[in-house]
């Protein structure tokens, strides 16, 4: 009897997971299916849930544009590349600068340590819209608009505090006894950082790196304002431009959307453990 009850319970719980899975997957599956359709099929009423004549043409238009393809897919590949360049640079800088600062803040007592910590935490809360005007004015007078560097710098405003905060939480999990022991053995502060703390905190570094990459990849507002030409336009901006002309090339937009979503989704799936650890590093006392 008990086993029957337990089975029933497990089964009904399983049933509950089904609507959740549908909720999660339906939009994405629909997007993928649409990206493999032709325009004509996409406009069909009722909708062809699975395209009857699937085609990779939309993707081909983006990577191997022919003259017939409109200009937006042609330039989309460049926008993807820009996103990769910018997100990677931001991640690299934040990891390096951020981990150095984070270690100092959590392990080295010095005057103003507490103040700086609170200050950094506070700046994480500042919305982008508050910074956009001055950054825009300065960037334009320094002739930085439309160059990737302006986005890299602007993204520091939210990525660096985030990285510091995450790394700080991870550094705190390194047992202090190890550091003390190294101290006693005559190791310098920087030596401890390099030889003891960093190797242990590698998962934390990976988490922070993934998180920062996703944050930078996702960003839209600054990219919209600061970049208009191909020199620096990022994938989200390119997608938004697709939408502006969607009646002309919706299938292209779908393909572009999938491509723009692939890097973060794949990274998210592979490094899931790390990312979730990063998310919870402030939430769960550990």
């Amino acid at each position: 009897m008990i086993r029957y009850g337990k089975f029933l319970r497990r089964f009904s719980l399983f049933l509950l997971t089904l609507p959740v899975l549908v909720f999660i997957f339906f939009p994405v599956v629909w997007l993928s299916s649409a990206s493999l359709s032709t325009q004509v099929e996409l406009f069909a009423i009722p909708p062809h849930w699975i395209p009857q004549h699937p085609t990779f043409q939309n993707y081909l238009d983006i990577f191997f544009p022919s003259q017939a393809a409109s200009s937006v897919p042609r330039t989309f590949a460049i926008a993807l590349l820009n996103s990769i360049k910018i997100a990677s640079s931001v991640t690299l800088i934040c990891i390096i600068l951020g981990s150095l600062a984070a270690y100092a803040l959590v392990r080295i007592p010095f005057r103003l340590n507490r103040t700086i910590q609170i200050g950094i935490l506070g700046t994480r809360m500042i919305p982008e819209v508050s910074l956009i005007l001055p950054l825009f004015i300065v960037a334009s007078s320094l002739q930085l608009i439309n160059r990737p560097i302006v986005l890299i710098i602007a993204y520091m405003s939210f990525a660096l505090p985030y990285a510091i905060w995450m790394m700080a939480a991870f550094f705190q999990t390194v047992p202090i006894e190890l550091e003390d022991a190294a101290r006693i053995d005559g190791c310098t502060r920087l030596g401890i950082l390099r030889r003891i703390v960093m190797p242990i905190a590698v998962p934390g570094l990976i988490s922070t790196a993934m998180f920062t990459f996703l944050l930078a990849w996702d960003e839209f507002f600054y990219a919209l304002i600061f970049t208009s030409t191909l020199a620096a336009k990022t994938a989200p901006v390119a997608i938004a431009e697709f939408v502006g002309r969607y009646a002309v090339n919706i299938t292209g937009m779908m393909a572009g959307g999938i491509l723009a979503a692939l890097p973060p989704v794949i990274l998210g799936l592979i490094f899931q453990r790390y990312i979730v650890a990063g998310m919870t590093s402030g939430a769960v006392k550990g």
Partner: protein
Amino acid sequence: MRKFTKVTMLVVTIVLFAGLVGCGPSAPAGPVTIHVLTMDQAGLKPAEIDQIAREFEASNPDIKVVMEYLGYDYIHDKITTGMAAKPPAYDAVMIDVIWPDEFIKAGYMLDVTDRVTPEMKAGMFPASWNGVTRNGKIYGMPWLMDVKYFMYNKDILQKAGIAEPPKTWEELVDQAKTIKEQGLVEFPIIWSWNQKEGVVCDFTVLLFGNGGAFLDASGKPVFNDEKGVQVLTWMKQTLDDGLSNPSSVASDENAVRDNFMAGNSAFAVNWLFQFSDSNDATKSQIVGQAAFAPMPVFAAGAAAGVQGSSVDGSSSFAIMATTPYPDQTWKFLSYLASNEVQIKYSAEMLPVWQDNFKGDALTNLEGATPTNPMTVPAFMAQFPYANERPTVSYYNEASAALQLAIQEALTGVKPPKQALDDAAAKWVELAGQ
């Protein structure tokens, strides 16, 4: 101090790396590159403009042209942000007929009065120069003269037993009812009434067709008088009666074209590009069925002497004031707007050179492409009645208020009179600032 140098070296490396990645391509030595922004909507298609650019480069090897295309609704804000860069993000941009006042005030447009040759001045339609001239100074090169046309589907009207397209909007309603009752299409009329400039264009057509206007002689808004309210009420009524497609409230001109091309509507008001697209066998289901008719007016407007009404949607190209390459840019714009080029691509866009519409040249023009025999007479008939939207520097925000008001009335949020009154109040406020 070893640690110090190590950390410093690390930081320096990062900065160098960021600089390398970040600084992007530097200006290439050799040919000058100019950037041009234009819309991917009315006018020539991007593929055609690209071709023109390549032809220009072939005969001007020291100039490289990089074209960029955006949906119309995004261009205005892109200009604002692009102009903040030095050098500006674009050397030339497409300027809609409603923007010069705002942009000249902001200092974006280059004075090109001295570059315009007498041939250009005399050759192009005076109306097209009016769009870019303020206080006697010329700020751009005319390019596209476009108005909204009234297009209908011949086949659907024939099946419904309607002999002639409507001459008044009231007739249109009757014809639409007939078509709907016979079950030929569910929603016979489609409009671009989404909350963008497109709805103000349609409103302009209807408002002037009722004998109304935007501003009076002293510049005060009068679009909220009884004529304007009648127009807005009429618009809402057609939606309520199921004659205008409910998705009109979310449609822009591209969506109107798509709907018309799919054979889902009998009547569609749109720019010229809808006609050529409707005859494109790769996209359209109604090849050969689209036809022009003069834009209807309201019975009250006809009684008041209004013979025709449309809206001027012309655009020109302006050189950005801070460009480092004004001469090269002007050279390209002159080529783009030249008579030969315009005639060659006249299926999408009729030339702005007026001699084409007289005598032999007219016959020539009409024969240039398969659709010209229909588009040229339509243009000549409709263009004289093109109405302007207000040429004020605060137009962008004013139009936004009007767009909002019309949306609110059409979706039943506010009664038409109140919505228009609120918009008019906003216009007064903006004028005072």
